[in-house]
Protein backbone atom coordinates (compact mmCIF):
# COMPACT_ATOMS: atom_id res chain seq x y z
CA UNK A 1 0.00 0.00 0.00
CA UNK A 2 1.47 3.33 -0.91
CA UNK A 3 1.79 5.69 1.99
CA UNK A 4 0.01 9.00 1.80
CA UNK A 5 1.45 11.64 -0.47
CA UNK A 6 0.02 14.41 1.58
CA UNK A 7 2.02 14.23 4.77
CA UNK A 8 5.55 13.43 3.83
CA UNK A 9 5.75 14.54 0.22
CA UNK A 10 4.78 18.14 0.78
CA UNK A 11 8.13 18.66 2.41
CA UNK A 12 9.89 16.97 -0.49
CA UNK A 13 7.97 19.16 -2.92
CA UNK A 14 8.90 22.31 -1.06
CA UNK A 15 12.54 21.28 -1.09
CA UNK A 16 12.36 20.51 -4.78
CA UNK A 17 10.73 23.85 -5.58
CA UNK A 18 13.25 25.78 -3.52
CA UNK A 19 16.15 23.95 -5.09
CA UNK A 20 14.98 24.52 -8.64
CA UNK A 21 14.29 28.16 -7.82
CA UNK A 22 17.75 28.61 -6.36
CA UNK A 23 19.34 26.82 -9.31
CA UNK A 24 18.01 29.47 -11.65
CA UNK A 25 18.33 32.39 -9.28
CA UNK A 26 21.98 31.90 -8.55
CA UNK A 27 22.80 32.24 -12.25
CA UNK A 28 21.51 35.79 -12.09
CA UNK A 29 24.45 38.00 -11.17
CA UNK A 30 22.27 41.01 -10.53
CA UNK A 31 20.07 39.05 -8.17
CA UNK A 32 23.05 37.74 -6.24
CA UNK A 33 24.52 41.22 -5.80
CA UNK A 34 21.15 42.48 -4.60
CA UNK A 35 20.85 39.61 -2.17
CA UNK A 36 24.32 40.31 -0.77
CA UNK A 37 23.55 44.00 -0.29
CA UNK A 38 20.30 43.27 1.48
CA UNK A 39 21.86 40.58 3.67
CA UNK A 40 24.52 43.07 4.70
CA UNK A 41 22.01 45.74 5.67
CA UNK A 42 19.71 43.28 7.42
CA UNK A 43 22.64 42.08 9.49
CA UNK A 44 23.58 45.70 10.13
CA UNK A 45 20.07 46.44 11.34
CA UNK A 46 20.08 43.55 13.80
CA UNK A 47 23.70 43.25 14.81
CA UNK A 48 24.93 46.77 14.07
CA UNK A 49 24.00 48.24 17.46
CA UNK A 50 26.20 45.56 19.08
CA UNK A 51 29.17 46.01 16.78
CA UNK A 52 29.20 49.79 16.72
CA UNK A 53 29.04 51.94 19.82
CA UNK A 54 25.68 53.56 19.15
CA UNK A 55 25.79 55.42 22.44
CA UNK A 56 28.11 57.87 20.70
CA UNK A 57 25.05 59.22 18.87
CA UNK A 58 24.36 61.67 21.67
CA UNK A 59 24.88 65.33 22.33
CA UNK A 60 27.57 65.20 25.02
CA UNK A 61 29.05 68.67 24.59
CA UNK A 62 32.49 67.07 24.71
CA UNK A 63 32.95 65.75 21.20
CA UNK A 64 34.04 68.26 18.60
CA UNK A 65 31.23 69.37 16.31
CA UNK A 66 31.28 69.07 12.52
CA UNK A 67 34.54 67.19 12.60
CA UNK A 68 35.75 65.25 9.55
CA UNK A 69 36.39 61.53 9.98
CA UNK A 70 39.02 60.63 12.55
CA UNK A 71 39.93 57.51 14.42
CA UNK A 72 37.10 56.65 16.79
CA UNK A 73 34.65 58.71 14.79
CA UNK A 74 35.15 56.92 11.49
CA UNK A 75 32.58 58.98 9.64
CA UNK A 76 33.07 62.24 11.51
CA UNK A 77 30.54 64.14 13.62
CA UNK A 78 27.59 66.41 13.01
CA UNK A 79 26.84 69.91 14.23
CA UNK A 80 26.01 68.65 17.70
CA UNK A 81 29.01 66.37 17.95
CA UNK A 82 27.10 63.15 17.35
CA UNK A 83 28.87 60.22 15.69
CA UNK A 84 27.60 59.87 12.12
CA UNK A 85 28.55 56.19 11.87
CA UNK A 86 26.34 55.43 14.85
CA UNK A 87 23.52 57.42 13.23
CA UNK A 88 23.81 55.52 9.99
CA UNK A 89 23.70 52.20 11.83
CA UNK A 90 20.62 53.18 13.82
CA UNK A 91 18.94 54.55 10.70
CA UNK A 92 19.16 51.18 8.95
CA UNK A 93 16.38 49.78 11.09
CA UNK A 94 13.94 52.55 10.23
CA UNK A 95 14.61 52.36 6.50
CA UNK A 96 14.21 48.60 6.31
CA UNK A 97 11.14 48.71 8.53
CA UNK A 98 9.48 51.35 6.36
CA UNK A 99 10.36 49.46 3.19
CA UNK A 100 9.03 46.12 4.33
CA UNK A 101 5.94 47.41 6.16
CA UNK A 102 4.81 49.89 3.51
CA UNK A 103 5.41 47.36 0.73
CA UNK A 104 3.31 44.80 2.62
CA UNK A 105 0.40 47.22 2.96
CA UNK A 106 0.69 48.26 -0.66
CA UNK A 107 0.93 44.66 -1.85
CA UNK A 108 -2.11 43.57 0.13
CA UNK A 109 -4.30 46.37 -1.17
CA UNK A 110 -3.00 46.04 -4.72
CA UNK A 111 -3.38 42.26 -4.85
CA UNK A 112 -6.87 42.19 -3.42
CA UNK A 113 -8.10 44.95 -5.71
CA UNK A 114 -6.31 43.51 -8.75
CA UNK A 115 -7.55 39.95 -8.30
CA UNK A 116 -11.11 40.90 -7.39
CA UNK A 117 -11.37 43.31 -10.32
CA UNK A 118 -9.83 40.82 -12.74
CA UNK A 119 -11.68 37.73 -11.58
CA UNK A 120 -15.16 39.14 -11.11
CA UNK A 121 -14.98 41.61 -13.99
CA UNK A 122 -18.00 43.62 -15.07
CA UNK A 123 -19.13 46.39 -12.74
CA UNK A 124 -16.70 45.54 -9.93
CA UNK A 125 -13.86 45.74 -12.42
CA UNK A 126 -15.01 49.04 -13.88
CA UNK A 127 -15.43 50.73 -10.51
CA UNK A 128 -12.21 49.42 -9.01
CA UNK A 129 -10.18 50.30 -12.07
CA UNK A 130 -11.55 53.83 -12.23
CA UNK A 131 -10.55 54.20 -8.60
CA UNK A 132 -7.11 52.76 -9.33
CA UNK A 133 -6.64 55.11 -12.27
CA UNK A 134 -7.27 58.05 -9.99
CA UNK A 135 -4.49 56.91 -7.68
CA UNK A 136 -2.28 56.28 -10.67
CA UNK A 137 -2.55 59.80 -12.06
CA UNK A 138 -2.61 61.81 -8.84
CA UNK A 139 0.92 63.20 -8.51
CA UNK A 140 2.20 61.02 -5.81
CA UNK A 141 4.48 63.25 -3.75
CA UNK A 142 2.01 66.15 -3.33
CA UNK A 143 -0.61 63.68 -2.13
CA UNK A 144 1.75 62.03 0.30
CA UNK A 145 3.03 65.37 1.56
CA UNK A 146 -0.47 66.66 2.11
CA UNK A 147 -1.52 63.49 3.91
CA UNK A 148 1.63 63.36 6.01
CA UNK A 149 1.24 67.02 6.94
CA UNK A 150 -2.35 66.52 7.99
CA UNK A 151 -1.78 63.27 9.87
CA UNK A 152 1.24 64.55 11.71
CA UNK A 153 4.78 63.26 11.77
CA UNK A 154 5.18 59.75 13.11
CA UNK A 155 6.76 56.61 11.72
CA UNK A 156 3.45 54.75 11.72
CA UNK A 157 1.79 57.52 9.74
CA UNK A 158 4.62 57.56 7.23
CA UNK A 159 4.33 53.82 6.66
CA UNK A 160 0.57 54.12 6.38
CA UNK A 161 0.68 57.02 3.93
CA UNK A 162 3.29 55.39 1.69
CA UNK A 163 1.45 52.07 1.83
CA UNK A 164 -1.94 53.36 0.83
CA UNK A 165 -0.68 55.59 -1.96
CA UNK A 166 1.60 53.17 -3.79
CA UNK A 167 -0.64 50.22 -4.61
CA UNK A 168 -2.17 51.45 -7.87
CA UNK A 169 0.57 50.13 -10.15
CA UNK A 170 0.52 46.75 -8.42
CA UNK A 171 -3.25 46.53 -8.75
CA UNK A 172 -3.04 47.21 -12.50
CA UNK A 173 -0.36 44.58 -13.06
CA UNK A 174 -2.12 41.97 -10.92
CA UNK A 175 -5.41 42.65 -12.64
CA UNK A 176 -4.03 42.16 -16.13
CA UNK A 177 -2.27 38.97 -15.08
CA UNK A 178 -5.47 37.73 -13.44
CA UNK A 179 -7.36 38.45 -16.63
CA UNK A 180 -4.90 36.45 -18.67
CA UNK A 181 -4.76 33.54 -16.21
CA UNK A 182 -8.54 33.49 -16.03
CA UNK A 183 -8.75 32.78 -19.74
CA UNK A 184 -6.36 29.81 -19.64
CA UNK A 185 -7.85 26.42 -20.36
CA UNK A 186 -6.81 25.08 -16.96
CA UNK A 187 -9.17 27.49 -15.29
CA UNK A 188 -11.89 26.29 -17.60
CA UNK A 189 -10.97 22.73 -16.72
CA UNK A 190 -11.23 23.59 -13.04
CA UNK A 191 -14.69 24.91 -13.69
CA UNK A 192 -15.53 21.80 -15.67
CA UNK A 193 -14.71 19.55 -12.71
CA UNK A 194 -17.05 21.57 -10.53
CA UNK A 195 -14.69 23.87 -8.62
CA UNK A 196 -16.09 26.93 -6.91
CA UNK A 197 -14.97 30.48 -7.62
CA UNK A 198 -13.01 30.71 -4.38
CA UNK A 199 -11.29 27.41 -5.08
CA UNK A 200 -10.28 28.59 -8.55
CA UNK A 201 -8.97 31.88 -7.19
CA UNK A 202 -6.90 30.22 -4.46
CA UNK A 203 -5.67 27.14 -6.31
CA UNK A 204 -5.28 28.40 -9.87
CA UNK A 205 -5.20 32.17 -10.10
CA UNK A 206 -3.23 33.09 -7.00
CA UNK A 207 -0.31 30.65 -7.55
CA UNK A 208 0.08 31.92 -11.09
CA UNK A 209 -0.09 35.56 -10.06
CA UNK A 210 2.26 35.13 -7.12
CA UNK A 211 5.53 35.46 -9.02
CA UNK A 212 4.44 38.91 -10.12
CA UNK A 213 3.42 39.79 -6.59
CA UNK A 214 6.83 38.84 -5.22
CA UNK A 215 8.76 40.81 -7.80
CA UNK A 216 6.46 43.77 -7.56
CA UNK A 217 6.44 43.93 -3.78
CA UNK A 218 10.20 44.03 -3.71
CA UNK A 219 10.25 46.87 -6.22
CA UNK A 220 7.64 48.74 -4.17
CA UNK A 221 9.83 48.27 -1.08
CA UNK A 222 12.61 50.10 -2.89
CA UNK A 223 10.28 52.96 -3.75
CA UNK A 224 8.95 53.06 -0.18
CA UNK A 225 12.45 53.52 1.21
CA UNK A 226 13.12 56.33 -1.24
CA UNK A 227 9.80 57.88 -0.26
CA UNK A 228 10.56 57.77 3.43
CA UNK A 229 13.87 59.46 2.79
CA UNK A 230 12.21 62.16 0.72
CA UNK A 231 9.43 62.75 3.21
CA UNK A 232 11.86 63.00 6.09
CA UNK A 233 14.08 65.33 4.12
CA UNK A 234 11.15 67.61 3.39
CA UNK A 235 10.46 67.79 7.12
CA UNK A 236 7.56 65.35 7.36
CA UNK A 237 9.62 62.70 9.13
CA UNK A 238 9.28 61.37 12.64
CA UNK A 239 11.49 63.63 14.77
CA UNK A 240 11.71 61.01 17.52
CA UNK A 241 13.31 58.36 15.27
CA UNK A 242 16.62 58.66 13.56
CA UNK A 243 16.55 57.62 9.93
CA UNK A 244 18.83 58.29 6.97
CA UNK A 245 16.31 60.77 5.64
CA UNK A 246 16.19 62.62 8.97
CA UNK A 247 19.99 62.80 9.06
CA UNK A 248 20.00 64.35 5.60
CA UNK A 249 17.22 66.70 6.66
CA UNK A 250 19.24 67.98 9.64
CA UNK A 251 22.40 68.12 7.58
CA UNK A 252 20.75 70.26 4.91
CA UNK A 253 19.01 72.49 7.44
CA UNK A 254 22.18 73.01 9.48
CA UNK A 255 24.16 74.13 6.46
CA UNK A 256 26.25 71.05 5.79
CA UNK A 257 26.42 72.10 2.15
CA UNK A 258 28.01 75.47 2.83
CA UNK A 259 30.24 74.01 5.55
CA UNK A 260 31.53 71.43 3.09
CA UNK A 261 30.62 68.66 5.55
CA UNK A 262 30.65 65.93 2.93
CA UNK A 263 31.01 63.23 5.62
CA UNK A 264 27.63 64.22 6.92
CA UNK A 265 25.89 64.19 3.54
CA UNK A 266 27.45 61.24 1.77
CA UNK A 267 27.10 58.21 4.10
CA UNK A 268 23.31 58.31 4.66
CA UNK A 269 22.72 59.00 0.96
CA UNK A 270 24.99 56.17 -0.15
CA UNK A 271 23.22 53.81 2.24
CA UNK A 272 19.87 54.75 0.72
CA UNK A 273 21.19 54.20 -2.79
CA UNK A 274 22.64 50.80 -1.84
CA UNK A 275 19.52 49.51 -0.13
CA UNK A 276 17.27 50.75 -2.93
CA UNK A 277 19.63 49.15 -5.47
CA UNK A 278 19.60 45.92 -3.50
CA UNK A 279 15.82 45.73 -3.55
CA UNK A 280 15.65 46.78 -7.20
CA UNK A 281 18.23 44.19 -8.26
CA UNK A 282 16.34 41.43 -6.48
CA UNK A 283 13.06 42.62 -7.94
CA UNK A 284 14.44 42.62 -11.48
CA UNK A 285 16.06 39.24 -10.95
CA UNK A 286 12.86 37.71 -9.57
CA UNK A 287 10.98 39.10 -12.51
CA UNK A 288 13.38 37.35 -14.83
CA UNK A 289 13.58 34.09 -12.89
CA UNK A 290 9.92 33.63 -12.10
CA UNK A 291 8.46 34.75 -15.42
CA UNK A 292 10.56 33.09 -18.07
CA UNK A 293 9.35 34.15 -21.47
CA UNK A 294 8.20 31.23 -23.52
CA UNK A 295 11.06 29.79 -25.46
CA UNK A 296 10.86 29.67 -29.20
CA UNK A 297 9.18 26.53 -30.41
CA UNK A 298 11.23 25.20 -33.26
CA UNK A 299 14.96 25.59 -33.21
Amino acid sequence: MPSSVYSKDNLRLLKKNLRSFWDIYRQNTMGLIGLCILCFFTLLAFLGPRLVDVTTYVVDGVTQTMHPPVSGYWLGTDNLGRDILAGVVIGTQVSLLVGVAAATISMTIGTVIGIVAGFYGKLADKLLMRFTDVFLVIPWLPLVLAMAALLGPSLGNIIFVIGITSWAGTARIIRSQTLSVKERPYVERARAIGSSGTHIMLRHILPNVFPLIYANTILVAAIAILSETTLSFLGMGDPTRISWGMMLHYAYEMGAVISRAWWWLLPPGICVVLVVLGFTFIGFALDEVLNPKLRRRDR
Partner: protein
Amino acid sequence: MSLLEVENLTTYYKLKEGYVRACENVNLKLEKGEALGLVGESASGKTTAALSLVKLLPDNAEVRAGKISIEGRDISRAMEDELRRIRWKEIAIIFQGAMNALNPVRRVGDQIVEALRIHEKMPEKEACLRTAELFEQVEIDPDRVREYPHEFSGGMRQRVMIAMAVACNPKIVIGDEPTTALDVMVQAQVLQLLEKLRRELQMGMILITHDLSVVGETCDRVAVMYAGRIVETGPTEKVFENPAHPYTRALIAAFPNIEGKRYLAQSIPGNPPNLLNPPAGCRFHERCSQIIGPCSEKDPTAVEVSTGHMASCHLLGRL
Protein backbone atom coordinates in the same frame (compact mmCIF):
# COMPACT_ATOMS: atom_id res chain seq x y z
CA MET B 1 25.47 22.70 -61.43
CA SER B 2 22.57 22.83 -59.05
CA LEU B 3 20.72 25.97 -58.06
CA LEU B 4 21.48 25.37 -54.42
CA GLU B 5 23.88 22.94 -52.90
CA VAL B 6 24.36 22.48 -49.17
CA GLU B 7 27.04 20.23 -47.81
CA ASN B 8 27.63 19.20 -44.21
CA LEU B 9 25.77 22.13 -42.73
CA THR B 10 26.15 22.03 -38.95
CA THR B 11 24.61 24.57 -36.61
CA TYR B 12 24.69 24.54 -32.81
CA TYR B 13 23.03 26.73 -30.21
CA LYS B 14 25.07 27.72 -27.22
CA LEU B 15 23.28 27.45 -23.90
CA LYS B 16 24.57 27.66 -20.37
CA GLU B 17 24.37 23.90 -20.12
CA GLY B 18 26.30 23.30 -23.34
CA TYR B 19 25.63 23.08 -27.05
CA VAL B 20 22.30 22.13 -28.55
CA ARG B 21 23.21 20.21 -31.66
CA ALA B 22 20.23 21.47 -33.59
CA CYS B 23 21.37 20.59 -37.05
CA GLU B 24 24.27 18.33 -38.06
CA ASN B 25 25.78 17.34 -41.40
CA VAL B 26 22.83 18.41 -43.46
CA ASN B 27 23.17 17.88 -47.20
CA LEU B 28 20.63 19.33 -49.57
CA LYS B 29 20.37 19.91 -53.27
CA LEU B 30 17.83 22.01 -55.12
CA GLU B 31 17.45 22.37 -58.87
CA LYS B 32 15.96 25.28 -60.74
CA GLY B 33 12.15 25.26 -60.58
CA GLU B 34 12.14 22.33 -58.20
CA ALA B 35 10.24 22.09 -54.94
CA LEU B 36 11.92 20.35 -52.04
CA GLY B 37 10.00 19.48 -48.90
CA LEU B 38 11.89 19.52 -45.61
CA VAL B 39 9.78 17.51 -43.19
CA GLY B 40 10.30 16.96 -39.52
CA GLU B 41 8.61 17.14 -36.19
CA SER B 42 8.97 20.11 -33.86
CA ALA B 43 12.57 20.79 -32.81
CA SER B 44 13.99 18.53 -35.49
CA GLY B 45 16.17 21.35 -36.78
CA LYS B 46 14.43 22.07 -40.05
CA THR B 47 13.98 25.80 -39.45
CA THR B 48 17.53 26.07 -38.13
CA ALA B 49 18.86 24.44 -41.28
CA ALA B 50 16.93 26.83 -43.51
CA LEU B 51 17.80 29.97 -41.58
CA SER B 52 21.46 28.93 -41.53
CA LEU B 53 21.54 29.30 -45.30
CA VAL B 54 21.30 33.08 -45.05
CA LYS B 55 22.59 33.37 -41.47
CA LEU B 56 19.37 34.64 -39.95
CA LEU B 57 19.88 32.85 -36.68
CA PRO B 58 19.51 34.05 -33.10
CA ASP B 59 22.61 35.44 -31.41
CA ASN B 60 23.50 32.25 -29.60
CA ALA B 61 23.65 30.17 -32.77
CA GLU B 62 26.91 29.11 -34.34
CA VAL B 63 27.21 27.75 -37.84
CA ARG B 64 30.01 25.27 -37.22
CA ALA B 65 30.60 23.95 -40.70
CA GLY B 66 29.03 23.66 -44.07
CA LYS B 67 29.40 24.71 -47.64
CA ILE B 68 26.50 26.53 -49.22
CA SER B 69 26.58 27.40 -52.87
CA ILE B 70 24.09 29.07 -55.13
CA GLU B 71 24.69 28.21 -58.79
CA GLY B 72 28.18 27.10 -57.90
CA ARG B 73 29.04 30.31 -56.02
CA ASP B 74 30.08 29.61 -52.44
CA ILE B 75 28.24 31.89 -50.03
CA SER B 76 29.06 30.13 -46.79
CA ARG B 77 31.85 32.58 -46.02
CA ALA B 78 29.97 35.68 -47.19
CA MET B 79 30.22 38.74 -44.99
CA GLU B 80 27.19 40.57 -43.66
CA ASP B 81 27.21 43.04 -46.57
CA GLU B 82 27.14 40.38 -49.20
CA LEU B 83 24.62 38.34 -47.24
CA ARG B 84 22.31 41.34 -47.21
CA ARG B 85 22.37 41.41 -50.98
CA ILE B 86 21.72 37.68 -51.17
CA ARG B 87 18.81 37.84 -48.76
CA TRP B 88 15.52 38.30 -50.57
CA LYS B 89 17.19 38.91 -53.93
CA GLU B 90 18.37 35.32 -54.21
CA ILE B 91 16.79 33.58 -51.25
CA ALA B 92 13.46 34.89 -49.95
CA ILE B 93 11.62 33.46 -46.99
CA ILE B 94 7.93 33.16 -46.26
CA PHE B 95 7.55 32.87 -42.51
CA GLN B 96 4.82 31.15 -40.60
CA GLY B 97 3.02 34.38 -40.85
CA ALA B 98 -0.19 34.30 -38.88
CA MET B 99 0.13 37.64 -37.14
CA ASN B 100 3.65 38.61 -36.42
CA ALA B 101 5.73 38.33 -39.55
CA LEU B 102 4.55 41.68 -40.85
CA ASN B 103 5.43 44.89 -39.07
CA PRO B 104 2.18 46.00 -37.40
CA VAL B 105 2.78 49.75 -37.63
CA ARG B 106 3.73 49.97 -41.30
CA ARG B 107 1.47 49.73 -44.31
CA VAL B 108 1.74 46.40 -46.12
CA GLY B 109 2.52 48.14 -49.39
CA ASP B 110 5.43 50.05 -47.85
CA GLN B 111 6.90 46.82 -46.57
CA ILE B 112 6.97 45.41 -50.09
CA VAL B 113 8.21 48.67 -51.58
CA GLU B 114 11.07 48.57 -49.10
CA ALA B 115 12.33 45.25 -50.46
CA LEU B 116 12.09 46.54 -54.04
CA ARG B 117 13.96 49.71 -53.22
CA ILE B 118 16.76 47.88 -51.46
CA HIS B 119 17.38 45.25 -54.09
CA GLU B 120 16.05 46.61 -57.37
CA LYS B 121 17.00 50.22 -56.63
CA MET B 122 13.60 51.16 -57.99
CA PRO B 123 12.34 54.70 -57.66
CA GLU B 124 9.42 55.05 -55.27
CA LYS B 125 6.77 55.39 -57.93
CA GLU B 126 7.82 52.42 -59.96
CA ALA B 127 8.07 50.31 -56.83
CA CYS B 128 4.50 51.24 -55.91
CA LEU B 129 3.26 50.20 -59.33
CA ARG B 130 5.12 46.94 -59.07
CA THR B 131 3.60 46.34 -55.62
CA ALA B 132 0.10 46.79 -57.01
CA GLU B 133 1.01 44.34 -59.75
CA LEU B 134 2.24 41.84 -57.17
CA PHE B 135 -1.01 42.19 -55.23
CA GLU B 136 -2.91 41.24 -58.34
CA GLN B 137 -0.63 38.30 -58.83
CA VAL B 138 -1.50 36.94 -55.38
CA GLU B 139 -5.18 37.76 -55.93
CA ILE B 140 -5.61 40.65 -53.53
CA ASP B 141 -7.34 43.87 -54.46
CA PRO B 142 -4.43 46.27 -55.28
CA ASP B 143 -6.30 49.07 -53.53
CA ARG B 144 -5.46 47.44 -50.26
CA VAL B 145 -1.73 48.27 -50.43
CA ARG B 146 -2.28 51.19 -48.09
CA GLU B 147 -3.80 49.09 -45.33
CA TYR B 148 -2.10 47.81 -42.20
CA PRO B 149 -1.50 44.12 -41.45
CA HIS B 150 -4.19 43.93 -38.78
CA GLU B 151 -6.81 44.81 -41.36
CA PHE B 152 -6.16 41.56 -43.23
CA SER B 153 -7.37 38.06 -42.41
CA GLY B 154 -4.85 35.30 -41.75
CA GLY B 155 -5.00 33.94 -45.26
CA MET B 156 -4.74 37.39 -46.81
CA ARG B 157 -1.74 38.22 -44.65
CA GLN B 158 -0.03 35.10 -45.91
CA ARG B 159 -0.74 36.21 -49.47
CA VAL B 160 0.89 39.55 -48.68
CA MET B 161 3.90 37.64 -47.36
CA ILE B 162 4.03 35.66 -50.59
CA ALA B 163 3.78 38.82 -52.71
CA MET B 164 6.64 40.25 -50.69
CA ALA B 165 8.70 37.08 -51.13
CA VAL B 166 8.43 37.02 -54.91
CA ALA B 167 8.81 40.80 -55.28
CA CYS B 168 12.47 40.67 -56.33
CA ASN B 169 12.13 37.49 -58.42
CA PRO B 170 14.29 35.43 -56.10
CA LYS B 171 15.93 32.26 -57.31
CA ILE B 172 14.91 30.37 -54.22
CA VAL B 173 11.90 30.77 -51.94
CA ILE B 174 11.91 29.13 -48.54
CA GLY B 175 8.48 28.58 -47.03
CA ASP B 176 8.73 28.05 -43.28
CA GLU B 177 5.46 26.38 -42.33
CA PRO B 178 3.64 28.80 -44.62
CA THR B 179 0.21 27.26 -44.09
CA THR B 180 0.29 26.22 -40.45
CA ALA B 181 -2.37 27.93 -38.36
CA LEU B 182 -4.56 28.56 -41.39
CA ASP B 183 -7.93 26.93 -41.94
CA VAL B 184 -7.90 23.88 -44.22
CA MET B 185 -9.60 25.62 -47.10
CA VAL B 186 -7.36 28.69 -46.88
CA GLN B 187 -4.38 26.36 -46.52
CA ALA B 188 -5.25 24.73 -49.81
CA GLN B 189 -5.72 28.13 -51.45
CA VAL B 190 -2.31 29.33 -50.29
CA LEU B 191 -0.58 26.14 -51.40
CA GLN B 192 -2.22 26.40 -54.77
CA LEU B 193 -1.05 29.98 -55.13
CA LEU B 194 2.50 29.03 -54.19
CA GLU B 195 2.51 26.23 -56.73
CA LYS B 196 1.21 28.55 -59.45
CA LEU B 197 3.84 31.20 -58.75
CA ARG B 198 6.62 28.66 -58.60
CA ARG B 199 5.75 27.41 -62.06
CA GLU B 200 5.31 30.87 -63.52
CA LEU B 201 8.50 32.30 -62.07
CA GLN B 202 10.57 29.12 -62.30
CA MET B 203 11.75 29.45 -58.70
CA GLY B 204 13.35 26.79 -56.60
CA MET B 205 11.36 26.26 -53.42
CA ILE B 206 12.12 24.72 -50.06
CA LEU B 207 8.98 23.99 -48.10
CA ILE B 208 9.54 23.44 -44.40
CA THR B 209 6.68 21.68 -42.71
CA HIS B 210 5.68 19.14 -40.12
CA ASP B 211 2.80 18.06 -42.33
CA LEU B 212 3.63 15.17 -44.66
CA SER B 213 0.64 15.84 -46.86
CA VAL B 214 1.77 19.36 -47.74
CA VAL B 215 4.96 17.85 -49.09
CA GLY B 216 3.20 14.98 -50.74
CA GLU B 217 0.94 17.22 -52.70
CA THR B 218 3.32 19.95 -53.79
CA CYS B 219 6.95 18.86 -53.68
CA ASP B 220 9.09 17.05 -56.23
CA ARG B 221 11.57 15.84 -53.68
CA VAL B 222 11.50 15.39 -49.95
CA ALA B 223 14.07 15.36 -47.15
CA VAL B 224 13.02 13.91 -43.80
CA MET B 225 14.73 15.31 -40.72
CA TYR B 226 14.95 13.70 -37.32
CA ALA B 227 16.79 15.12 -34.31
CA GLY B 228 18.98 17.46 -36.32
CA ARG B 229 19.83 15.10 -39.13
CA ILE B 230 18.44 14.20 -42.49
CA VAL B 231 17.52 10.55 -42.34
CA GLU B 232 16.05 10.09 -45.79
CA THR B 233 15.82 12.04 -48.99
CA GLY B 234 14.60 11.36 -52.49
CA PRO B 235 11.84 11.95 -55.04
CA THR B 236 8.55 12.33 -53.18
CA GLU B 237 6.77 9.40 -54.85
CA LYS B 238 9.64 7.04 -54.21
CA VAL B 239 10.03 8.02 -50.58
CA PHE B 240 6.33 7.89 -49.80
CA GLU B 241 5.66 4.65 -51.61
CA ASN B 242 8.82 2.96 -50.54
CA PRO B 243 10.17 4.51 -47.36
CA ALA B 244 13.56 3.08 -46.46
CA HIS B 245 14.15 4.50 -42.99
CA PRO B 246 12.15 3.09 -40.07
CA TYR B 247 11.31 6.62 -38.91
CA THR B 248 9.89 7.62 -42.29
CA ARG B 249 7.98 4.36 -42.40
CA ALA B 250 6.44 5.03 -39.01
CA LEU B 251 5.50 8.58 -39.97
CA ILE B 252 3.84 7.48 -43.16
CA ALA B 253 2.03 4.68 -41.38
CA ALA B 254 0.69 7.17 -38.86
CA PHE B 255 -0.80 9.29 -41.60
CA PRO B 256 -4.53 8.71 -42.06
CA ASN B 257 -5.23 7.80 -45.67
CA ILE B 258 -8.90 8.21 -46.45
CA GLU B 259 -8.56 6.10 -49.56
CA GLY B 260 -7.42 3.11 -47.56
CA LYS B 261 -8.81 1.21 -44.61
CA ARG B 262 -9.56 2.81 -41.29
CA TYR B 263 -6.60 1.78 -39.26
CA LEU B 264 -4.92 3.27 -36.22
CA ALA B 265 -1.19 2.80 -36.54
CA GLN B 266 1.16 2.12 -33.68
CA SER B 267 2.74 5.29 -32.48
CA ILE B 268 6.50 5.56 -32.21
CA PRO B 269 7.37 4.87 -28.57
CA GLY B 270 9.32 7.39 -26.54
CA ASN B 271 10.23 10.96 -27.35
CA PRO B 272 12.79 12.65 -29.60
CA PRO B 273 16.20 12.84 -27.90
CA ASN B 274 17.48 15.87 -26.07
CA LEU B 275 19.86 17.51 -28.50
CA LEU B 276 21.99 18.90 -25.69
CA ASN B 277 23.18 15.38 -25.18
CA PRO B 278 22.09 13.20 -28.09
CA PRO B 279 22.53 9.44 -27.99
CA ALA B 280 25.54 7.88 -29.67
CA GLY B 281 25.11 6.19 -33.00
CA CYS B 282 21.87 6.56 -34.89
CA ARG B 283 19.78 9.25 -33.24
CA PHE B 284 16.65 7.21 -33.76
CA HIS B 285 17.87 3.94 -32.28
CA GLU B 286 16.23 4.42 -28.89
CA ARG B 287 12.80 4.53 -30.49
CA CYS B 288 13.44 2.13 -33.35
CA SER B 289 11.77 -1.28 -33.45
CA GLN B 290 14.46 -2.91 -35.59
CA ILE B 291 17.77 -2.07 -33.97
CA ILE B 292 20.81 -4.14 -34.71
CA GLY B 293 24.33 -4.11 -33.29
CA PRO B 294 25.92 -0.97 -34.73
CA CYS B 295 22.84 1.23 -34.28
CA SER B 296 23.81 2.42 -30.83
CA GLU B 297 27.50 2.81 -31.66
CA LYS B 298 28.10 4.11 -35.15
CA ASP B 299 26.54 6.91 -37.10
CA PRO B 300 24.85 5.40 -40.12
CA THR B 301 26.00 6.67 -43.50
CA ALA B 302 23.67 7.54 -46.32
CA VAL B 303 23.00 4.63 -48.67
CA GLU B 304 21.47 5.00 -52.10
CA VAL B 305 18.32 2.90 -52.13
CA SER B 306 17.46 3.67 -55.71
CA THR B 307 18.42 6.50 -58.06
CA GLY B 308 18.31 9.72 -56.09
CA HIS B 309 16.74 8.05 -53.06
CA MET B 310 19.10 8.02 -50.08
CA ALA B 311 18.58 6.88 -46.52
CA SER B 312 20.82 6.72 -43.46
CA CYS B 313 20.16 3.45 -41.68
CA HIS B 314 22.41 0.54 -40.71
CA LEU B 315 19.78 -1.93 -41.82
CA LEU B 316 20.25 -0.82 -45.39
CA GLY B 317 23.92 -1.68 -45.36
CA ARG B 318 22.97 -5.24 -44.49
CA LEU B 319 20.85 -5.78 -47.55
